[in-house]
């Protein structure tokens, strides 16, 4: 079986909701059935074959070629399948994904991996705001799995993060780790203002000294035993995080946000 490949024929005029093309919804469908699926694009409904050339037959291994930032909800609630996006992805990439793998060769939009439950999501480029966050009004963001961003991330990374790991090789925007309940966010580049704003628990692991709010208290420098284990878990990743030379176990520890319960921590490489 070869990967089911959707090649975008032309740039769509409006944003397109690709959630009907999630692999778990395509199981057992023929190419003709898939071609006939209607996708919402603005007010219009477009057949899949109007937008894409379809090849291959493995519905659990999907490739989206010539992808653009207008393709939203790619891999919604993904279960035990693989999606490769060649190009950019729109908003809500991998929203609520339960397991499996999504890889994007370009950039992704807002709310990537929002409310993700498990699995692995990798974005080679940059990503928009609210990476791994909760939808507006919801109290729980990403609950498990791993996100790797090789570029930069926007604002509010891991807003309401509950569990799981977000790895950012580049920079993160303002409010990184805001309202975190738990989980781990690691940023190799720089972070913006209001880091860990209202975080309750969880770990922000930084390579560069942040601009911390007054509600984070210095707990001193420490050697932490869990860090080698954490870094060892990154070894299989295709990432700078897998490089043993970037690992460390000496950190400056800041506790916060003291305006909340203050059980969170910002660990900065020493």
């Amino acid at each position, binding site marked *: 079986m070869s990967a089911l490949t959707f090649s975008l024929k032309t740039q769509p005029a409006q944003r397109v909701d690709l959630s009907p093309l999630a692999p778990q919804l395509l199981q057992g469908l023929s190419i003709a059935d898939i071609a006939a699926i209607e996708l919402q694009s603005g007010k219009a409904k477009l057949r899949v074959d109007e937008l894409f050339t379809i090849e291959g037959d493995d519905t659990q291994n999907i490739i989206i070629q010539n992808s653009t930032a207008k393709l939203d909800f790619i891999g919604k609630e993904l279960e035990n399948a693989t999606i490769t996006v060649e190009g950019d992805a729109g908003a809500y990439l991998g929203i609520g994904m339960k397991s499996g793998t999504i890889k994007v060769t370009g950039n992704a939009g807002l709310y990537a991996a929002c409310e993700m439950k498990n699995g692995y999501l990798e974005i080679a480029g940059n990503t928009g705001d609210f990476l791994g966050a909760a939808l507006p009004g919801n109290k729980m963001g990403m609950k498990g799995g791993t996100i790797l961003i090789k570029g930069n991330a926007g604002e509010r990374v891991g807003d309401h993060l509950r*569990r799981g790991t977000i790895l950012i090789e580049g920079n993160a925007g303002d409010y990184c780790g805001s309202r975190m309940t738990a989980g781990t966010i690691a940023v190799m580049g720089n972070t913006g203002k209001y880091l860990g704003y209202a975080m309750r628990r969880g770990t922000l692991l930084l390579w560069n000294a942040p601009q911390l709010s007054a509600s984070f208290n210095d707990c001193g420098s*420490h050697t*932490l*035993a*869990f860090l*080698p*284990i*954490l870094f060892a878990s990154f070894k299989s990743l295709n990432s700078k995080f897998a490089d043993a030379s970037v690992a460390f176990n000496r950190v400056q520890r800041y506790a916060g946000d003291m305006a909340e319960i203050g*059980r969170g921590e910002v660990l900065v490489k020493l």
Partner: protein
Amino acid sequence: MIINGVTIDATFAEAFPMKATRAIITAQNEKWAMIAAQAMTGFATSVIACGCEAGIERILGPNETPDGRAGVSVMVFAMGGKSLAKQLETRAGQCVLTAPTSALFAGIQSDIKIPLGKNLRYFGDGFQIAKKISGKRYWRIPVMDGEFLAEATTGQVNAIGGGNFLVLATSQPQALAACEAAIEAMRKIPNVIMPFPGGVVRSGSKVGSKYKTLNASTNDAFCPTLKGATKTDLSPDIESVMEIVIDGLTKEDIDKAMRVGIQAVCDLGADNGIRRISAGNYGGKLGPFHFHLQEIMA
């Protein structure tokens, strides 16, 4: 059967099903990992009164431990899952949590999980932090020397306890020397522990006693000073008997440990005062696992 002048009795060791687990203790260096391990496996010679049988399986190099530090692998055996969990938790809490620089990790995988750091976390009084890494949950518990890192659970497996053999010698020093040689060889075998002091027990027991409150008492048939006073199992030339008890994960593990142990004793042979190898059993009615000495040495 006679090996190097040592008679191997046509008898068998009788062993029982137990529940077992393994934990890995690491520390800043081997010295402190060993101190924690010795404390954790102390007072754990026999389930008769200790609640469990525990021992050090082996020393681990930094490349064999989860956190890349020096470590020691310990195994704990108990008669049931509940008592195993209780013993593991109290020993981990009092002996490993308290030992400077230590960390504690699961040493065996199984579908049945028992708490390792899962309940010790409450020592953190709300400051404890959970980290789930590669599917395993760890607890970071703030302590006065830094942070105590403990994996939440370890596995519980079915195991066998009570494999044994007796070394019968013409003098006490010769019996001990033979047992020391046996233990040195047996410590190289994985998945087994010899829970008694130094691996050797000088007070082997029989079931029951003339005193109603005791369920075990001295194995008078093998006591050399009672050769003329009881129904003895000893010939006149035997002056000292020592026993090695083995707990292991599988019958094959215990077989292997018994084989290398008995072989080490026999290598010393009759020239060094070793006369017989025997084993303790209860007539085969109590324990489902029988380790026939002559089959093992065949």
